[in-house]
């Protein structure tokens, strides 16, 4: 178990990167605190797996250093870093039994046979495969194989960190839930530093203490699920997290007033005079549909009843705005205005959040 420090880290798959665009992972300084569970969230190709592979040593970074507990491991090979990593697709040793598969990392470290047997039994119970221990791994289903991969990742107690690279992609939905819960309880029990890569926000938000959102090779925000929800630092975080994502509208902002395509709305807080490309972001949860003549004029396109609430899809001069209405709420034909709750309004300049300056 260790604190992992990324110092000035960046990586490019090209031999001679010229501009910043050539970097799959842009310069990054970050501490992964010992014993915390992190989720690394982002769309495919945003550099999540690159970062993970650099930490485990499978990739050598183009620049910067990696430190485990302040010890520089940048040039150490994977085998010496004592890291566990589970990949997206199952990797099992076909010719071995399930038991030998689980015992493999321990035996490679020369662990004592009695300890190996005990530990394998524990892990088998955890992944629910006690009755399959003597079977050959060849010919098992994909999700059984992935459970073995997970088990192999968790079998060593002394690892510096546990890395998961979208490990539940091939697993059944109900098993997914169960395994995620087990990973969480494992984390509580042993306190490993865990980094969990995913593009599924539910997975990230339920698993981790801290969620790290990546976009285009850069970490755009790191925070608790609540922070990501209430104050997205980047418009990408806004619409990537949440279902549906945040409504983002072009606007011009002066002080506590915003003009969105000719309609002035009050923001409740002052934002100065942000420059660049200014946008206003409001989550559907803070948006309400109203009648009368206050707010943005919209046309209701569709109402989707998802059970717990209704999602109202509206159109504001060609831009879609989503509204979340309570399950019991009446949607009448004269409701053609949208009102934002000032508590949920964020202002963005060039996609980055502008901090409010008070009323």
């Amino acid at each position, binding site marked *: 178990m260790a604190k992992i420090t990324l110092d000035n880290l960046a990586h490019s798959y090209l031999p001679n990167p010229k501009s910043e665009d050539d970097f799959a992972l842009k310069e990054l300084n970050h501490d992964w605190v010992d014993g915390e569970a992190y989720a690394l969230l982002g769309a495919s190709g945003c550099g999540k797996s690159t970062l993970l592979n650099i930490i485990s040593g499978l990739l050598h970074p183009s620049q910067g250093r990696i430190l485990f507990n302040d010890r520089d491991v940048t040039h150490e090979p*994977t*085998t010496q870093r004592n890291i566990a990593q589970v*990949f997206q697709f199952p990797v099992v040793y076909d010719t071995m039994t399930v038991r030998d598969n689980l015992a*493999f990392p321990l035996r490679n470290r020369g662990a004592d046979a009695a300890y190996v047997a005990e530990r394998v039994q524990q892990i088998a119970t955890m992944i629910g495969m006690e009755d399959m221990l003597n079977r050959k791994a060849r010919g098992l289903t994909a999700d059984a194989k992935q459970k073995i991969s997970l088990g192999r990742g968790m079998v060593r107690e002394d690892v510096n960190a546990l890395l998961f690279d979208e490990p539940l992609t091939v697993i059944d939905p109900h098993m997914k839930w169960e395994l995620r819960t087990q990973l969480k309880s494992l984390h509580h029990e042993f306190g490993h530093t865990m980094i969990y890569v995913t593009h599924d926000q539910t997975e990230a938000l339920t698993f981790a203490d801290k969620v790290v959102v990546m976009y285009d090779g850069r970490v755009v925000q790191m925070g608790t699920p609540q922070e990501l929800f209430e104050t997205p630092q980047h418009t990408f975080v806004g619409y990537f997290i949440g279902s549906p994502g945040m409504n983002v509208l072009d606007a011009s902002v002066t002080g506590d007033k915003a003009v969105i395509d000719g309609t002035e709305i009050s923001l409740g807080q002052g934002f100065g005079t942000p420059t660049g490309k200014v946008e206003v972001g409001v989550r559907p949860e803070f948006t309400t549909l109203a009648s009368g003549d206050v707010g943005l004029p919209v046309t209701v396109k569709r109402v989707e009843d998802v059970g717990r609430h209704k999602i109202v899809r509206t159109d504001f001069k060609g831009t879609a705005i989503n509204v979340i209405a309570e399950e019991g709420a009446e949607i009448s034909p004269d409701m053609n205005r949208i009102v934002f709750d000032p508590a949920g309004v964020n202002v963005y300049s060039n996609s980055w959040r502008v901090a409010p300056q008070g009323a």
Partner: protein
Amino acid sequence: MNKTVNQKAWFLVLPVLLLVAFSAVIPLMTVVNYSVQDAFAGDFYPLDDKLEWFKQMLESERMWDALGRQVAFSAIILAIEIPLGIFVALNMPKRGFWASLCLVLMSLPLLIPWNVVGTIWQIFGRVDIGLLGYTLAALGIDYNYTQDFYAAWVTVIIMDVWHWTSLVALLAYAGLQSIPDAYYQAAKIDQASRWKVFRYIELPKMMGVLMIAILLRFMDSFMIYTEPFVVTGGGPGNSTTFLSIDLVKMALGQFDLGPAAAFSIMYYLVILLISYVFYTVMTNLDKRDGH
């Protein structure tokens, strides 16, 4: 799907049947015909005991000796070519210019016709003008494949290794290329040693192609004729007279068509049997891979 009975469908098989009849069955039956009669100067005389030639061949010390040499030869070249081929494949570059260059260089011996390979080594090993033979002689090593039993065997074996190890290497290489990177990464994460990576990842993944390599090399070496015939002509004495060479001597050299035909049929059956065993083992391997 519902299948209806339609006996006329058999007619669809007819063209293949005809083709196989002309390409395999009829020539084979000619051999069978020879094997149960006494052919002499173009005439056939019936045998009292139809199986006489078979019995004679089974009691023939000469045939058993040739079979013994044949088995020894196949075993030795397999024992060298398979591990060597795997070793070469493991050390080949995985991608890029050098990988392509290696592939081209390795395929070269495979493209050379058998009798040319024989001729190359026949000249290469000659003590008077061959580079190898002359050099060895100059170093004071007594090497003469036309007179010495060991020299003849070593030459024939090295020639086969030179000619065919590439095939094993290329097949093993193809097997290795099909292993996803994740396996090697997982092995690093699991802190597996190089030997364990080979034993638990590379070897199992290569098993399928290796079985094909073993089968091909076994069949080819078991039927080998041209190369040793060109180099040693089966000598010195009978020391490199393998089954095919012996068969040709018997059929064309001595015109013992009956015994040679009986010999051919047994030779054929042995090969068929071994192929069947290989086929069964291979399909079982596939099944164990499980779906």
